[in-house]
């Protein structure tokens, strides 16, 4: 018996798909208990709000702490927002969210258990509507109310907490150990509480300013917030609706085979950073322009943006940045990814080559200045023949 089974899976004459299916089946079994369904109730999609999106206000949250009038008077979003209250989520998103057809935070989505004591990581996409109630249903069918803690804008992640113990948590991979071409399975638990799986591979690394791995497995709200797992059920990252050029994913990106996952190399570190209500991490900005045509190693500084982290730290034109916190910078893009992986407020140690000498410079990364944000033009892929449904073509 043993012999027969061993022979069946002997690598020389193994049936690849049989081996794969067996491995995937085990991987799903391994990841399943730590994949949860997240549902939200209430809240306002900014798209629903009337009027000028710039003047929009969002209802307060959490709702249940508030005294509710008993007479059924209209209230909530019809009431004027309290004076001076800052909306919970960035105003910059509103405009985009208010675009016609841009729909968010609807229906159940997926999350992954980070730790046994109830930290759950998911996509920030699910909370754009500022929901009144967030519930988490675990694989065993138990539903619990959850608190929304911090949000990481750069990676599109949100941290939730439920008051439960002994939860089965997932195992996460460091993106350094991930190879392009490796099998990848996207798992969601948004359809009828059962996990659903979609297959693909790791398509690329270092996407979205170094914050994401790319996959060709189908991604959409049916698995946003869910895990992309390897053949052993280990998590490459959390499926997030990021898009090119800072664009968030919209229905046009669903299932396009262009999907992104935010890796979580260190779950405990993530909990430490996001484990407080109201925390909102922003993309980091160093404030240098670099020569992208120059071969590495290192990134050559061609310009310093005044009053940015770079200027404050004393970086100069002509400096060659060789390493960030000990990680070598192979070329200009390498610097971009290293900075991109960090967040505003992070301190970095830069190893810099200046006039033939290596020096160390410390810098505290800024937020991306407002006016800087949209300057980078989103490049346009050149359109193909407009592939409409082909007409019956009779030609010679």
């Amino acid at each position, binding site marked *: 018996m043993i012999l027969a089974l061993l022979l069946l899976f002997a690598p020389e004459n193994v*049936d*690849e*798909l*049989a081996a*794969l*299916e067996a491995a*995937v*089946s085990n*991987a*799903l079994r391994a990841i399943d208990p730590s994949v949860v369904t997240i*549902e939200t*109730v*209430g*809240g*306002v*999609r900014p798209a*629903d709000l*009337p009027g000028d999106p710039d003047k929009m206000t969002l209802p307060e949250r959490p*709702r*249940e702490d508030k005294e*509710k009038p*008993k007479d*059924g*008077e*209209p*209230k*909530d*979003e*019809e009431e004027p927002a309290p004076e001076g209250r800052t909306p919970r989520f960035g105003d910059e998103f509103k405009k985009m969210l208010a675009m016609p057809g841009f*729909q968010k935070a*609807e*229906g*159940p989505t997926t999350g992954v258990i980070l730790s046994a004591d109830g930290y759950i990581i998911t996509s920030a996409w699910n909370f754009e509507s500022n929901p*009144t*109630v967030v*519930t988490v249903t675990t694989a065993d069918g138990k*539903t*619990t*109310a959850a608190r929304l803690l911090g949000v990481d804008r750069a990676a599109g992640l949100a941290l939730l907490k439920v*008051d439960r113990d002994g939860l089965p948590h997932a195992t996460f991979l460091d993106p350094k150990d991930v190879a392009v071409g490796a099998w990848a*399975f996207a798992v969601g638990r*948004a*359809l*009828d509480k*059962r*996990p*659903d*799986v*979609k*297959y693909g591979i790791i398509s690329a690394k270092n996407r979205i300013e170094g914050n994401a791995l790319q996959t060709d*497995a189908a991604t*959409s*709200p*049916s698995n946003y917030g869910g895990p992309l797992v390897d053949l052993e059920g280990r998590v490459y990252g959390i499926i997030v609706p990021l898009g090119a050029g800072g664009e968030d994913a919209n*229905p046009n990106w*669903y*299932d396009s085979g262009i999907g992104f996952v935010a890796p979580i190399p260190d779950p405990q570190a993530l909990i430490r950073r996001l484990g407080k209500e109201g925390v909102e991490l922003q993309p980091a900005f160093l404030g240098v322009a670099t020569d992208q045509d120059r071969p590495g190693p290192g990134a050559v500084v061609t310009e310093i943006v005044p009053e940015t982290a770079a200027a404050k730290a004393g970086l100069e034109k002509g400096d060659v940045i060789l390493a960030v916190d000990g990680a070598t910078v192979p070329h200009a893009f390498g610097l971009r990814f290293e900075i991109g992986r960090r967040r505003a407020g992070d301190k970095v140690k830069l190893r810099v080559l200046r006039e033939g000498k290596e020096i160390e410079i410390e810098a505290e990364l800024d937020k991306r200045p407002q006016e800087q944000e949209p300057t980078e033009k989103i490049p346009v892929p050149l359109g193909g023949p407009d592939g409409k*449904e*082909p007409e*019956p073509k009779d030609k010679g």
Partner: protein
Amino acid sequence: MRALLPAFHRMAQGLPLLLLAAMTTAGPAVRSPRIDAAVTSVQPSVVKVFGVKGFTGVFGYMTGVIVHESGLVITRGSVTLDEAPQIKCHLNDGRRYLAELVRYDKRSKMVLLRLMADKGETFPAAKLGDSDKVRPGQFVLLVGNAYRVAEGGEPCAVNLGVVSAVTKPSMRAGLADDFDYPGEVILHDAMNNPGVYGGPLVNLDGEVVGISGTLVESRETNVQLHYAVPIDDLKPFLEDTIARPDAGKVYSGSSEDAGEEEGSGEPGYHGITILKAGINLATPAYVDRVAPGSPASRAGLLPDDLVLRIDRTAVKNWKTFEKMMAKYHAGETAQLTIKRKDEVKVIAVKFEAKP
């Protein structure tokens, strides 16, 4: 010019071949033998179905699969077929037939066509699998004529995917209006497209495990679902049609299915007054009042409870609450998932006749 051929052969035995050999041994397999075998096995049974308008042109197309050697073809029912004075079926071997619509399955919206062939002519029927054994993560092939890429004897396109889940997506709130299959379906990630409807979903043994439905898109998120009706669900339809070919155009299934039909009549009474707030419907479903002695009161519902779900469907706001509760009739029970402070609990409310 011919004289040059030997030189080609000589060359072919030389360096390029060595390179090729080196490449093939180093790399992964060019094709999976099982996919190859499955494609080879199912393709002869796949039929390109065209609804024909008058004499001039083709205006609708889809995919079918031969399920019986007498020339029975299963495909998805559609207007294309209903309105077509002529249905045409093209086989992979180049044979073309007119077909007649034999029977329509109300439950699955699938139809059976019969190829109008000479007496005694037989057709390669596809092997039907056991859809009960379909598991998430299993590889499947979806075969179909997406965008009418194939016409005559050209084979239909093959897309590879995995089974995502076997489930009842109709339970999920906000799904497309036109999706009403009452049973579990096979969800998969092989892309379904216009033209593929009615095409077979095939396992790696070349067996048909499902028949592709239409593309379903969620009204809310625009997520698209690719689903196939499990072949086991269709076997009674097929067997009954073979056994009783003259039993009428419409197959309504066994009597058990009738129970799944939606009831009619007055909505039942529950006694909950929901908090109606906001013209934009965004206010969650908070219980405002519970009528004393009403079913809700007896079940223990309290004012300020927030209703999260009715049975398995999420309640987004007060409006959806009202809409959904109106679907229950006296005697039926709804499981309400509610949130009271930080506690989430399930309360069963049994509807009564309106007092």
